[in-house]
């Protein structure tokens, strides 16, 4: 097997430990929300972006309008525009079809690991390193979603397993609150989401997110003045 592929697969091993519980929670949450096993696993294959899947699952479970679930998932995944732009120069020697294939696997983890390796000049063939990272992630993602689907239906409600969903988000959120502007964005968005919790169409989340982003930008502008 290609040396760059092997290097990527080796580097991704510790990251997989975090993918396992995340994928299982997605599977469990989907069943909890009333999705069928096929829908739960199909979502992991089509969308393949955990945070947005969890948010959509939660909103679908509350019978929010389809448009709200889709819109919220898109907002969550907008950050990948940054990944796409930042990794693009490393892929631009490849054919269009290859690039279209590589794009499917672009996740937080695959992006972070690949860019780090590219910038350290540790990679000869960028495509193979990226696939070495991304293939194990996608396999573990699908298998562990399915595992969550199987386990989820057998666990009693009183265990509050769906509580693992906000815990997953919390585990991602806390390290993201690196500086004051981002912390302000989080606090404003969270506060609005709590106040608007019974707003129609579950609009509390997108409203809070948009105002939170504005508050973060404002804090940054004030600080840089």
């Amino acid at each position, binding site marked *: 097997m290609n040396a760059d592929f092997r290097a990527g697969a080796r580097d991704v091993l510790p990251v997989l430990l975090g993918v396992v519980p995340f994928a299982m929670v997605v599977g469990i949450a989907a069943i909890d929300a009333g999705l*069928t096993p096929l829908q739960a696993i199909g979502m992991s294959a089509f969308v393949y972006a955990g*945070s947005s899947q969890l948010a959509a699952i*939660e909103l679908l*479970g509350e019978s929010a309008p*389809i448009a709200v*679930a889709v819109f919220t998932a898109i907002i969550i995944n907008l950050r990948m525009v940054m990944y796409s732009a930042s990794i693009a120069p490393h892929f631009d020697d490849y054919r269009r079809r290859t690039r279209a294939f590589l794009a499917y696997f672009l996740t937080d983890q695959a992006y972070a690991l690949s860019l780090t390796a590219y910038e350290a000049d540790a990679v000869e063939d960028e495509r193979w390193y990226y696939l070495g990272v991304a293939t194990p992630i996608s396999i573990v993602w699908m298998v562990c979603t399915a595992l969550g689907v199987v386990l989820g239906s057998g666990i009693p409600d009183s265990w509050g*397993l769906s*509580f693992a969903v906000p815990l997953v988000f*919390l585990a991602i959120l806390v390290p993201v609150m690196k500086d004051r*502007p981002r912390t302000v964005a989080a606090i404003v968005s969270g506060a609005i989401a709590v106040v608007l919790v019974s707003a129609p169409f579950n609009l509390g989340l997108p409203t809070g997110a948009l105002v939170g982003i504005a508050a973060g930008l404002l804090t940054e502008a004030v600080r840089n003045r």
Partner: protein
Amino acid sequence: MTDHGPIAIWVAIVLIGVATYLIRLSFIHLFGRIDDVPPAVERALRFVPPAVLAGLVAPALISVGPTLEATLLDDRLLAGLVAGAVAWRTEDMFATIGVGMATLWLLRFVVP
């Protein structure tokens, strides 16, 4: 449990999947470079993760009760605060979920 029928759910899954793929493909397709994203857009995008995640977490942990005491002593809020402290110290998803769930169960099943 959802009131949506199977077709509505599949429509949501496919729409989210297509939109997400197009987001991923955007600049990879355009041979873009990082400075192709207008700086103002890039600045705003950096706030997407904290804002969206907090909007998801806060209502799941905080439910405003009839009194301040009822609001603050909610088992999900307390378990969430403990889990948040673990996330802060370890930045480890396993530890955060494990300690958070254990705290919730302790408060639910052990503490009277």
